[in-house]
């Protein structure tokens, strides 16, 4: 008797599955819209992952506390990609095959590049809020809320050259981020007339840069350009100064870890990233910056801001899809809404962010310098009109 129940249950499950192809979440209780997020939550880049998550959680709370969006409550499934391309593939496969989400936030160049084909095969809309490589542009199903390699690195090259740097050494992570941003900086710096005198790389998980820095010190560069994430930035500058590398140090996307781990060695570092304007008059941006400061006692950096923006953008896509009679749990429907309205709020400096035909975005960026243990904006670069 016990055995005969099993095929019955199986048959029922099959019939139920055919009659109701939508996820179970849609049929019971309040409507929940589940989407994915891939952040580095372990490994050397974990510190930046925590910032991404702060922005994500704040945006979800914002939307849900106002009753959700057209009756949908937002819920995220956050998966750790460990900062590696392999981790990205595993995370994306989990989100697509197990959680069956139609929308995923991605971070890190290598992760986004690995996830994009999986997203395209499964009609999942992918929003990059961290990776900067030029190679992320023009990929189906992948859109970018981030300043990409060329616009991010050109101001660094220009700043260095304007400050009399004629020779540069590169120390970059052995992944797509390090490689592609290194190329972008090299192109911009050599175009200005500068010369690259050394180029070294390091594995993502390494914490000892002695050998690379010793070679770089011997090449005596005017400027040291580094590409690293999270606490690795801090470790790198700390070891560089301890090994008596005297060059000015610059690099894209500086994070909190640069200062907390680097300490005094981080002084003078110049980094480029998305502009944050604490004096903005834009009501939405002002409200976000104030709420973040009230909650975390600090002004948000780009890494908390872009996930925040992307979740609000997702909410607007859900709204547009519902308004036009579509099902927001379909990645294709969300993509259609995005193509119809490729604009969203800039919560970091006010105004709007426009997605371009190459799937990149246009927004202001800033050069920041570490002074007395804090980031000070030294220049804001407006995007071309």
């Amino acid at each position: 008797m016990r055995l005969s129940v099993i095929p019955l249950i199986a048959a029922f499950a099959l019939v139920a599955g055919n009659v109701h192809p939508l996820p179970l979440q849609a049929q019971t209780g309040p409507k929940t819209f589940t989407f994915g997020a891939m952040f580095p939550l372990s490994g050397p880049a974990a510190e930046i992952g925590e910032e991404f998550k702060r922005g994500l959680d704040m945006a979800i709370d914002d939307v849900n506390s106002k009753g959700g969006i057209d009756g949908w409550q937002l819920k995220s499934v956050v998966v750790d990609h460990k900062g590696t391309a392999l981790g990205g593939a595993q995370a994306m496969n989990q989100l697509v095959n197990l959680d069956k989400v139609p929308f995923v936030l991605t971070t890190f160049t290598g992760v986004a590049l690995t996830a994009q084909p999986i997203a395209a095969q499964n009609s999942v809309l992918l929003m990059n809020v961290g990776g900067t490589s030029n190679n992320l542009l023009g990929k189906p199903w992948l859109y970018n809320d981030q300043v990409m390699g060329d616009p991010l690195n050109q101001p660094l090259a220009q700043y260095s050259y304007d400050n009399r740097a004629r020779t540069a050494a590169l120390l970059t992570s052995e992944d797509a981020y390090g490689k592609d941003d290194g190329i972008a900086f090299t192109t911009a710096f050599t175009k200005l007339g500068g010369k690259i005198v050394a180029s070294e790389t390091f594995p993502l998980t390494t914490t000892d840069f002695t050998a690379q820095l010793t070679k770089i010190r011997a090449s005596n560069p005017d400027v040291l350009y580094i590409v690293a994430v999270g606490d690795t930035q801090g470790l790198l500058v700390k070891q560089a100064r301890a090994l008596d590398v005297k060059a000015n140090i610059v690099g894209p996307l500086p994070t909190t870890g640069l200062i907390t781990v680097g300490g005094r060695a981080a002084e003078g570092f110049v980094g480029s990233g998305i502009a944050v304007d604490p004096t903005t008059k834009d009501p939405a941006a002002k409200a976000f910056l104030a709420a973040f400061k009230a909650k975390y006692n600090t002004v948000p950096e780009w890494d908390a801001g872009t996930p925040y923006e992307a979740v609000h953008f997702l909410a607007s896509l859900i709204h547009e899809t519902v308004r036009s009679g579509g099902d927001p749990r379909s990645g294709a429907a969300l993509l259609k809404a995005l193509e119809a309205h490729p604009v969203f709020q800039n919560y970091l400096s006010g105004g709007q962010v426009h997605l371009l035909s190459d799937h990149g975005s246009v927004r202001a960026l800033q050069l920041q310098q570490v002074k007395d243990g804090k980031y000070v904006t030294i220049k804001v670069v407006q995007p071309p009109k």
Partner: protein
Amino acid sequence: MTILLTLLLLGLTVGSMYALFAVSFGLIYNVTHIFHFAHGAVISAGGYLVYVLVQLLGWPVWLGIAAAIPFAALLGAAIELFFYRPLRRRNAPHVAFFLTSVGILTVAEGLFGVIFGPGVLSLKFLPLAAIHIGDVSVTTANLSMLSAWVFIALVVVFLLATRSGRFMRAVADTPEVAKSTGIDLEGTYIWSFLLGSALTVPAMLMYAWYQGLTPAAGLSTILISSAAVIIGGRTGVLAGAIAALGLGILQAVAIVFLPSGWQDAVVFSVLFFVIALRPNGVFGLAFRW
């Protein structure tokens, strides 16, 4: 030429630190024959305890270190008592010891991540600064690594001059013969865990001085120290120490001839060739304790 000299000096210092890690691992591995991967957990635990006591609670550095050494020793002994000894009494195969060991390390790494966060913690009470020796620059942390040889010398004296040390050597050589002469095997195992684990504290401080503390630090140090012990051969702790010193120098100098990313691969390439060509280690019986 200056680069090569600098890299040689840096390799010598880092290799000295590796040597202390290798001795601490080798003391346990040679005596108990357990591939004690959980040693990585003991290494990290000692480092984090010093961080808590000195940096967070404001204890004097010497007192923090003095407290962490017996803590690490007892933690290592507790792993033997509560995990390995029950397995030994059930005649569990070697793979069971290894898997238990890996499990302990994995759980510990997760715990450290939850308690201290997954990022890098800098030891601010150990100032990192440049020291110039002619044209060559090294760091304060590098110089501290040379003190590893003082600890190694003390271990050698302990092994040669004390009763417990002689028992450990005898058990490492031939446990059956040692047992037949009345040596308490399990008591000797405890001694090897106590001593090997205590040594992790100074070694870990040298490591964290330069590279900071992370939950994964234990794993990265255990990989290199176990490789050194295998390369050196299981005949004595000095063989592992000399192999570790060689690996440190090779790793540093390799960057002159190979792309930067090949540094770690160099260590494991050497390990591969040694296992293939001299499975009992490069030194054979040359360094018997």
